[in-house]
């Protein structure tokens, strides 16, 4: 198989304005981004710089005010199972068990029962929730809920996983573990990941490429290709050098804005 020449996701000069109680808020201004299949990309930036908006446009929840959002070269005109979203607040269906949540998309799309059961079991095991397969969401910890949220997009054949600060509400230890698990899944499945975070360390630990955004109005500021080998050592000098560099880039906007 040859590498496809068309990018899996592409944002071309995307702007987004919201009308908010009579006020016009420009959330995003001329953002362009190209994502190739299999890439792990982190979007990073201060809050309010349009990260979620960009992700929601990629998901199809929002339409750009101007510019184009494309998947495989075709305009994104609404949410689709090929682009799975993982929310910070999980968004699990409380009336479905872990199994029910993971099988939701397949059931909604009318797949045969036997296939659903097989697929669900596979993904329940993949995210290590065998013992909790029949638990209700309210009985799970935050980390387990987020595993379910990831499993239900993967079980639904997502090609791109869009993650909006997915580990932001978790404690540090759980977050570290989920980062490792996510990287494993990514490496073994050939997924494409677009991951929003405001933690520089998380971005450097996870991604092939860090996309830095800046506010007022939200735009893409710079990109940084990371060719560090994995698994990455957060204590290594190289890691820290990159972290410092990114830190400076993100802070220079503040300086520029203040000036």
């Amino acid at each position: 198989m040859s590498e496809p020449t068309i990018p899996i996701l592409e944002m071309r000069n995307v702007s987004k304005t919201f009308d908010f109680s009579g006020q016009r808020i420009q959330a995003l201004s001329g953002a362009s981004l190209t994502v190739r299949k299999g890439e792990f990309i982190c979007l990073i930036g201060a809050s309010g710089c349009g990260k979620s908006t960009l992700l929601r446009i990629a998901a199809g929840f929002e339409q750009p005010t101007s510019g184009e959002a494309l998947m495989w070269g075709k305009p994104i005109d609404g949410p689709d199972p090929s682009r799975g979203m993982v929310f910070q607040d999980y968004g699990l269906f409380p009336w479905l068990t872990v199994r029910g949540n993971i099988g939701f998309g397949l059931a909604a799309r009318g797949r045969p029962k036997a296939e659903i059961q097989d697929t669900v079991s596979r993904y329940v095991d993949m995210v290590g929730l065998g013992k909790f397969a029949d638990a209700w969401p309210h009985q799970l910890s935050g980390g387990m809920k987020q595993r379910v949220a990831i499993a239900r997009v993967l079980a639904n054949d997502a090609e791109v996983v869009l993650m909006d600060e997915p580990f932001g509400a978790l404690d540090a230890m759980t977050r570290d573990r989920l980062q490792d698990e996510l990287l494993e899944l990514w490496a073994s499945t050939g997924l494409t990941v677009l991951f929003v975070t405001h933690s520089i360390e998380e971005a450097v630990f996870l991604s092939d490429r860090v996309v830095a955004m800046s506010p007022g109005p939200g735009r893409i500021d710079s990109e940084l290709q990371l060719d560090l080998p994995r698994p990455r050592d957060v204590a290594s000098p190289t890691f820290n050098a990159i972290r410092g560099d990114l830190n400076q880039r993100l802070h220079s906007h503040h300086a520029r804005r203040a000036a």
Partner: protein
Amino acid sequence: MSIVMQGAPPAMRGHGRVSTARLRALGGRAGQVALALAFPAAILTGWHFATAGEAYSLVPPPAEVARAFWDLAFGGINDDAFSQTLLTHVLASVGRVLGGFGLAVLAALPLGLLIGRVPFVRQMLDPTLQLLRPIPVTAWLPLAMILFGIGPRSAFFLVFLGAFYPILVNTVFGVRAVEARLFEAASMLGCKGPAQFARVVLPASLPAIFTGLRLGLGFAWVVIVIGEMTGVQTGLGAIIMEARQLSRTEIVIAGMVAIGALGFISDRLVMLLGRRLLSWSPNHV
């Protein structure tokens, strides 16, 4: 009236939790039962001493009511027109309550889902329904008698009307309270448009719908008696009315007891069903 009822369930729930905790402190299950029985026992005792042996008491003593109830159910004591008729009347009332309630569910549930979810339907129907809502069900009785004639069909209609609004109002409330996030999650998983009614809207609003069902059924029992009080031959409302005209107060009270028991039982049944269907909900008892 419905507005008050709407606010009631959460308050009732919270209150229930507090008092159960207190009761537990008073000494386990036996203590709970004893405490729950103490109050009615005191009332019965007071009632007994105030009425037993009084020649011209307007209210018969509890023992006489119990005897009337037995005769109403099984006969063998008075052998008059009321003897052994309880089952007939119970079945007549239960039939009307279930029929009217069932019809109210069939109408209010889909309508509530649509009003809650589809702006067009809400804008078209909600103002009218809100204008009609403050009219007490009892005020519909004369019109119902004109429309449906004097007889069981008016009672049936009143039950329907009484159960309709609590179910509708709570369903709409439940649907509107569904988190937007769940619709986003469903649509990115491939469940879009009308398919979301069955897979998201209905299950997500089920706790509120059950509150509506319980209130609606309770209302149905309130209204059935009024509906059966004019021109109906059978039903608990009918015997209460007939017994009053014959000054058989002990039968009036026996009929009241029967209605109370049936209302209580039907509420328990709905609650049990709710418990099974809502076991997923962390704040449903």
